[in-house]
């Protein structure tokens, strides 16, 4: 099966591991991602001011260009997925947004594209039972904290991804790989996000709480689909500010998937992590 794919900016630079592991793991499961031609940044922040349509134009253009290819558009970065899904929701449900954005696009886009996240593809297209059969048991018994953060699940009515307070899709995914998802009460807490550039204390204190909670519940690694969550939690520990010993590797869920499928580790992007996950995963 071929599906159109929007990588997003960070996946071409700091989060190459997320891009490479997503493409490789889905390809191993029979899903070929076809990168959209001429894509741009999604805008990163969904504009929360009602009168700010200009902040939605880039995402609207991406959604419209995908509509010419296929119904669905795969994107894995939590920021991109959040922005594309909410802009699409606005175009579908808000006549003013639809009219104004189409004035910019010079198209008649009505919200036909369906942004999908690889976790949804794994659940609904591949199936967790089929995934269980493919995972080789290499990671059996590994204790994993599934960290959703904010943007995948909130706001629930627009994201329609999972329960906003107690999502479980990542735990179901982890269980299918043969690893052991741990109870993790901070799974939808925010890591502080872009405040790393403005109010660093927020990221340091929230990051420490999230890591400590994961470690206290026995986690050996933490998984996420957000390059900024990954950076904040990993970098904090790289600076020696994590206070969790041993340091907790922060992985993309697709890197865990690639490892469980026994894909070559060199293609999964582990070398750019601050806390090296290789001794634990491949050791």
């Amino acid at each position, binding site marked *: 099966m071929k599906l159109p794919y929007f990588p997003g900016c960070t996946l071409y*630079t700091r989060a190459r591991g997320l891009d490479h592991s997503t493409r490789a793991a889905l390809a191993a499961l029979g899903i070929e991602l076809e990168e959209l031609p001429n894509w741009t940044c999604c805008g*990163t922040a969904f*504009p*929360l001011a009602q009168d700010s349509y200009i902040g939605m134009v880039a995402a609207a253009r991406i959604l419209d260009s995908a509509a010419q290819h296929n119904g669905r558009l795969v994107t894995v970065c939590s920021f991109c997925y959040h922005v594309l899904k909410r802009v699409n929701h606005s175009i579908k449900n808000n006549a003013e947004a639809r009219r104004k954005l189409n004035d910019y696009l010079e198209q008649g886009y009505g919200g036909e594209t369906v942004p999908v996240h690889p976790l949804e593809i794994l659940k609904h297209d591949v199936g967790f039972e089929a995934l269980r059969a493919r995972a080789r048991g290499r990671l059996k018994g590994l204790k994993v904290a599934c960290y959703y953060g*904010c943007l995948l699940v909130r706001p629930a009515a627009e994201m329609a991804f999972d329960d906003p307070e107690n999502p479980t899709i990542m735990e179901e995914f982890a269980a299918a790989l043969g690893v052991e998802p741990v109870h993790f009460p901070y799974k939808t807490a925010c890591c502080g996000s872009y405040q790393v*550039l403005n109010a660093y204390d927020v990221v340091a204190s929230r990051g420490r709480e999230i890591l400590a909670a994961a470690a206290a519940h026995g986690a050996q690694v933490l998984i996420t689909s957000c390059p900024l969550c990954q950076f904040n939690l990993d970098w904090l520990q790289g600076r020696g500010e994590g206070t969790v010993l041993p340091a907790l590797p922060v992985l993309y869920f697709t890197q865990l998937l690639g490892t469980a499928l026994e894909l070559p580790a060199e293609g999964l992007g582990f070398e750019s992590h601050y806390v090296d996950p290789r001794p634990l995963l491949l050791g």
Partner: protein
Amino acid sequence: MVSVGPSGELCEKISEISGQNPFLCMQCGTCSASCTGIGVMDLLPRQVVRMVQLGRREALACRSIWVCSSCLACTTRCPRGIDIARLMEALRAINLRRGHEVLSPERIPAALLTEVPQMAVTCAFRKLSA
């Protein structure tokens, strides 16, 4: 401090930009209890909403609106259905549209700027600079 005329005007402007009715707030504090940035805020999110209800300009001048990470925990949990993150964005927007910003490139340590994913840079500048 940014000025927006008489106090009623401030509330009206915020309602217009956010699409939210701040008077639905009953001051329960669920937003404050859920907030990511609470540790470095001067006003609790609940107090920010109260200031908006009262048309007090402290709402525009507080640090809280700038350390909000737009995580939407308050929005998701508000029992009165107020999208509080949109109120915070409206307060930032009023400031930014008058040229009052809090983030400028020279404030960011170079070591951090070369490490951080660029999504953080784009997002932070869209939220915090004019």
